[in-house]
């Protein structure tokens, strides 16, 4: 099948995933009503008579739509970030988590949860902003330290240093958790990720961050293609490897950091989505980056739908669902490719 048809199908798939995510739950709302509600809220179009005054209007607009869009943005962001990390570090198992984003963000969030500290002008966003700052600080410290150890910033050095930093920060997190047992449930829950109680303010803040991040990363698609063949090759083909590597690691970490800061740590999508996309579309980053956004986003929406409906009215942590579905799925995708199944 031609690539453009695959892209069209992927867009349709994403649309269906979002519609399903928004439509299913304690109250089932058909796609036509969802579109009508969005049209009413965004373009002031008239509401159908059977929607007016119902709970569906509020549930869709105030709860499910922002939640589903946030899930899509977060899933897309971590998937794009994962595809960048895999290419830059030439390691199919690499992700921003490898460099300690989640550990750093978790530590930052834990400190806020335990101390109850609030930055006045940030209010409820103190927690995500602190998580983001700590996540990025961990990655930048790891890469900076790797650059000090190895000026050429070899991939293996970055991965190794990233793992060391990640383990160190995790140990600090364990200490904080051990000393603040009263907050144990809250800390654990944050580390498993959730889209519960997220509203439009989260979407409005995250949307421009993800959009700008993905566009900037897309701008490096040729460089990423070349760098997968090795950094020496890329250097001799005219790529400013050091600058590109720093830029991509930073952008990728910022994408994951932003996403994780809002909803907690959600794993596996950053690993799975790029592999699925490469399997379907090939390795060219011009396609891999936007399609990772679509597939990662859609997959996250589906996982969140499962998390909030499977034992309704209770909710499961979405991180547990992504891991439960993701781990065997990743094993299938990765090993079937290697064995040529």
């Amino acid at each position, binding site marked *: 099948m031609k690539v453009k048809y695959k892209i069209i199908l992927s867009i349709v798939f994403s649309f269906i995933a979002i519609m399903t995510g928004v439509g299913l739950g304690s109250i089932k709302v058909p796609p036509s009503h969802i579109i009508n509600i969005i049209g009413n809220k965004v373009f002031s179009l008239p509401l159908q008579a059977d929607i007016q005054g119902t709970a569906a209007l509020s549930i869709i607009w105030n709860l499910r739509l922002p939640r589903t869009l946030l899930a899509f943005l977060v899933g897309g962001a971590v998937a794009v970030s994962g595809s960048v990390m895999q290419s830059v570090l030439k390691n199919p198992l690499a992700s921003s988590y490898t460099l300690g984003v989640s550990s750093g963000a978790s530590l930052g969030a834990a400190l806020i949860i335990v101390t109850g500290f609030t930055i006045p002008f940030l209010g409820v966003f103190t927690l995500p902003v602190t998580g983001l700052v700590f996540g990025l600080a961990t990655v930048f410290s790891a890469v900076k330290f790797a650059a000090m150890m190895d000026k050429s910033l070899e991939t293996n050095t970055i991965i190794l240093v990233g793992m060391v930093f990640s383990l160190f920060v995790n140990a600090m997190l364990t200490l904080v958790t051990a000393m603040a047992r009263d907050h144990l449930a809250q800390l654990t829950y944050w580390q498993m990720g959730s889209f519960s109680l997220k509203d439009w303010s989260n979407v409005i803040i995250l949307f421009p961050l993800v959009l700008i991040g993905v566009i900037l990363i897309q701008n490096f698609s*040729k460089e990423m293609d070349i760098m997968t063949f090795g950094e020496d090759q890329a250097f001799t083909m*005219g790529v*400013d490897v050091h600058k590109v590597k720093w830029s991509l690691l930073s952008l990728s970490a910022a994408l994951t950091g932003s996403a994780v800061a809002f909803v907690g740590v959600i794993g596996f999508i950053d690993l799975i989505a790029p592999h699925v996309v490469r399997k379907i579309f090939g390795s060219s980053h011009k396609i891999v980056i936007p399609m990772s956004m679509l597939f990662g986003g859609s997959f996250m929406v589906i996982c969140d739908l499962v998390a909030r409906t499977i034992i309704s009215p209770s909710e499961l942590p979405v991180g547990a669902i992504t891991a439960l579905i993701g781990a065997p799925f990743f094993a299938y995708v990765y090993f079937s490719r290697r064995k040529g199944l």
Partner: protein
Amino acid sequence: MLSLQNVNAGYKGTDVIFNISLKVKEGENLCIIGPNGCGKTTLLKAISGLIPHKGSIKIDGIDINEMKRADMARKIGVLSQISTIYFSYSIYETVLLGRYLHMKGRTFKEPSSKDKEYTDKCLKAVGLYSIKDKQINELSGGQLQRVYLARTLAQEPDIILLDEPTNHLDLKHQADLIDFLRDWSKYEGHSVIGVMHDLNLAIKLSDKVLVLDKGRMAAYGNAHEVISSNLLNKVYDMNITEFMVDSLKLWESLDMPYHPEPKRRIS
């Protein structure tokens, strides 16, 4: 075109090559030979700017330390040994990457017709046009080496550096590659600088030969003036004539370089 003056280079502050001075003119090919660890690859890395050097390396009179990365890549392309493929691309996509510098700033646009035409031309030149949509992880070592050669050609460099380019090739493809590179340099007025272990191929490709011994120039000059059994026996620390195949003996007995006439044009 390329000149080196008293070049030292190495790794982590320790020099591996010492006082290398040479000149390569347009259309001239140079082979670097010598035993393992004598500094052949280090010299190539220094010329390509991959490692820092002392002394002077100039291309068209400009020191490479003063050249931007992109300008340098327009002058020098490197065909290195085959390495691990982490993510597979089609042959066409891989060769098109060689047009990177020519396509810069076109991230959100399709490659220009000129880029596509030149990519096709390079694919045809190495005989892979008919299978251009095949994935590179499905290719043999020889085919992959030709893909990388096409990608290096697509870069349109003035000089191609080769690091043991025939490692994965059978005899026929080794001869084909060397013929091809000779034609490319002679017809287009470019140069090839290659590190080779096979003396027969080195002789076939080169106008000049540099023999390195423990990082120093043991000999440098026209191939037929430089290579002699005595010198090689000394540098390789063995009786190399026992392992030498007929072409070298034949070549030694001739007054002219052992070079076939160029046959093909690339562009």
